């Protein structure tokens, strides 16, 4: 009965999110933008007033990338690395200071809490653009096995190349993904950009004040060129303006492209841990689907691991408020105890260690490597969280505008595909630009950009939908879907119809 209510609530939550609502939402990494989004009507009015303003003439760029996150940096590095696009005059604008990332020097016994999982195709691109060689391999952990199970029924899928193929095949890359710290990846990308023969103009610590259309002068008609005005007063006219500027993309708002979706009322809790000695086991990624959201432990080099626990905002607040030892006990419990127990533990302000000790002694649970080894310690200051949402822009392109990464699509992180699909966008966009350049097209023209959109939109849409359905499916604590989903998992796990092989090869390819 109550499932229907839940469904109903979902329907209400999933009503179209208007642009205004999107703007009202708390920005995440875009908080650096002082941008005041103009609605189309406002854009029109500023354009009218623009002609009367006496403004310095903007510097003309072929490509202006707004946003210096991993996707924006990958884009700048890819444009410079590809032969056909390397002559383009590129500028990248980032609100934060890039110097700490450029000068990043890691401590050996510390890993940051923001970790990304890079699938093989992403790594291939990073190799092509010369970024992977700047990644310190001793701080990268690859894994070729995954353990995913249902928190209510225990139904489990083991994704393990070694088991599936009956041993390691030298020809096949059996890696499912590589875990790298975000800052490490950005550091490598900045170094790759530094290696480029033609350097893009990197403008950091600078906010985008506004974006307007250019003006008509005697010789030139820049009225359909976006002109970006920076907080320094500098103006850049963009033949092609690329929004790599995150979920609340000012570029997308400027283009008047709506982004639709919903908030999950879930936050993702991240943290980095020290773990017990796991050298006896292969490095696996672990994910347990609880009705409140999936909890995952991802491997890091040595005796370190990273947590990604999606749950309700209240529970995240509770997790953050716990004493370190109680928090550690809570995370260990999340992979061992029943959902009833985990739910109860969220009410305890202290004494979690005691309580979980007793519960684990009377609860039957699998042992490593089916579940992660125990974590022993949470690294100071690594507990953080961010809200989860699902968004998809109506389109990725407009005349002289393209959107990549989170600006185009925001996905639930359970599949670790957010950054990977963003980098997939970059790969496709650069390919389209190169093709356009070879045929003498304007890189900003929609004819140049169309192949990018048609190549990326449907696959991204399918991925967003799939992950969203998983979130819904595993949100049920009981009811007819619970045994059904377990049956489905059983079928996949036994590799009937070659389903498991198919899923794994797809994951490796994408």
């Amino acid at each position, binding site marked *: 009965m109550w499932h229907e209510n839940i469904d109903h609530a979902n329907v209400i939550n999933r009503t179209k999110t208007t642009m205004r609502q999107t703007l009202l939402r708390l920005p995440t990494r875009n908080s650096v933008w002082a941008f005041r989004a103009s609605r189309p009507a406002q854009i029109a009015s500023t354009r009218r007033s623009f002609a009367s303003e006496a403004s310095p003439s903007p510097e003309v760029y072929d490509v202006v990338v707004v946003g210096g996150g991993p996707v924006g940096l990958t884009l700048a590095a890819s444009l410079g690395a590809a032969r056909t696009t390397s002559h383009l005059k590129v500028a990248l604008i980032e609100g934060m200071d890039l110097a700490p990332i450029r000068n990043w020097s890691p401590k050996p016994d510390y890993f940051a809490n923001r970790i990304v999982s890079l699938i093989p195709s992403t790594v291939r691109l990073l190799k092509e653009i010369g970024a992977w060689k700047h990644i310190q391999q001793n701080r990268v952990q690859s894994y070729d096995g995954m353990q995913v199970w249902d928190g209510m029924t225990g139904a489990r899928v083991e994704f*393990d190349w070694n088991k599936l193929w009956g*041993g390691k095949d030298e020809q096949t890359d059996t890696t499912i993904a590589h875990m790298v710290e975000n800052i490490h990846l950005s550091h490598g990308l900045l170094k790759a950009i530094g290696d480029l023969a033609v350097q893009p103009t990197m403008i950091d610590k600078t906010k985008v004040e506004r974006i307007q259309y250019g003006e008509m002068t005697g010789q030139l008609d820049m009225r359909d060129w976006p002109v970006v005005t920076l907080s320094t007063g500098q103006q850049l006219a963009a033949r092609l303006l690329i929004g790599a500027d995150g979920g609340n993309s000012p570029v997308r708002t400027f283009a008047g492209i709506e982004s639709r979706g919903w908030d999950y009322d879930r936050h993702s809790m991240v943290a980095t841990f020290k773990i017990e000695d796991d050298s006896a086991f*292969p490095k696996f990624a672990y994910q347990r689907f609880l009705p409140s959201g999936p909890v995952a432990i991802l491997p890091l080099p040595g005796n370190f691991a990273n947590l990604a626990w999606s749950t309700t905002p209240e529970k995240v607040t509770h997790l953050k408020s716990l004493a370190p030892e109680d928090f550690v006990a809570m995370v260990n419990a999340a992979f061992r105890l029943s959902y009833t127990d985990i739910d109860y533990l969220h009410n305890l302000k202290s004494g979690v260690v005691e309580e979980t000790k007793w519960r684990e002694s*009377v609860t039957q649970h699998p042992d490593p490597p089916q579940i992660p080894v125990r974590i022993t310690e949470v690294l100071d200051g690594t507990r953080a969280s961010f809200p989860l949402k699902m968004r998809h822009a109506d389109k990725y392109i407009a005349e002289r505008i393209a959107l990549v990464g989170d600006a185009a699509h925001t996905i639930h992180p359970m599949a670790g595909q957010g950054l990977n699909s963003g980098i997939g966008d970059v790969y496709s966009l650069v390919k389209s630009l190169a093709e356009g350049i070879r045929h003498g097209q304007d890189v900003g023209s929609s004819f140049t950009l169309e192949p990018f959109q048609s190549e990326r939109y449907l696959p991204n849409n399918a991925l967003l939908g799939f992950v969203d359905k998983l979130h819904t499916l595993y949100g049920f604590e009981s009811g007819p879907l619970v045994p059904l989903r377990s049956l489905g998992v059983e079928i996949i796990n036994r590799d009937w119809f070659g389903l498991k092989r198919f899923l794994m090869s797809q994951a490796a390819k994408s």
Partner: protein
Amino acid sequence: MAASTTCLRCLRSRALPAASNRAFSVLNRPPPNYPGHVPLTGPERLFLAAGSALMSFIDPRRGDMIALLGETTAQPFFITRLRDTMLRHPTGRRILRARPRITSQSLSLPRLRSLPPNTIGATYVAWLDREGVSPDTRADVRYIDDEECAYVMQRYRECHDFYHAITGLPIVREGEIALKAFEFANTGLPMTGLSVFSALTVKADERERLLKVYLPWAVRNGMQAESVLNVYWEEELETDVGEMRERLGIEVPPDLRTARAEARRRKRDGKTTTTTATTAAAGTAPTGDETAKVETEAERAEREQLEIERKAMEILEQADKM
């Protein structure tokens, strides 16, 4: 990485879930999970459930069969759910952690007899004394696989007499049936629900009263009340029954004794009136003999009914004692 993968398979066997959750054959029955535990195969469990249901039906005094039925039908789903109900409640968790047993040793019966009559302890011991049973007569749980769930079953059984005390239902047949319905709504154990089917054997007017008054009361209260498993009875012996009822959210049930007396009186009056009308219609004067005969018949009917009720009570009491 490559080296460690070779031992994956042997590691895996270590990681298998506990024996009792796995299918096995009678030839390789796994060791018990706790003293007295008998792991059953699926077919065995099915056979025992069907057999005990049949035996309980044929001979309702077989308390052991009713207990067996209770255990074989509670697993895997119902007892786990009851356990989770306890786990969600601080007191329930405390009980599960301490695992107290109710025996004549753990409870000082003489002390309970000295408590004021409106206390839970006094009501409980009054029930034991009237029925001539002791807390020690409860059988041990053997067929629930999970040790903790087995304890939950044991606890349910040992606390049954306290439920009488707080619901305040009288120890008559309808009251027993109503209590079983209450338990079913409150605990969800299938055996308690099956016991409610004995309502089919009562007389039509009683059944009507059950259906209209007592079963709705039982179901409503059973569902809305806090789980009775989450009461630490050992700590509540001196608590006032009414206060506990209020705490659990149980309404005072309609006064069954009054209702029964009322119904009986109405029935008798109705019969007399009918007889009078009949004789009046016949046009003859009623004689004392005839009146006496009619009264004797009514008395006999009542006596027969009381006999049936007594038999039914036996059945239900057996069920209580399982």
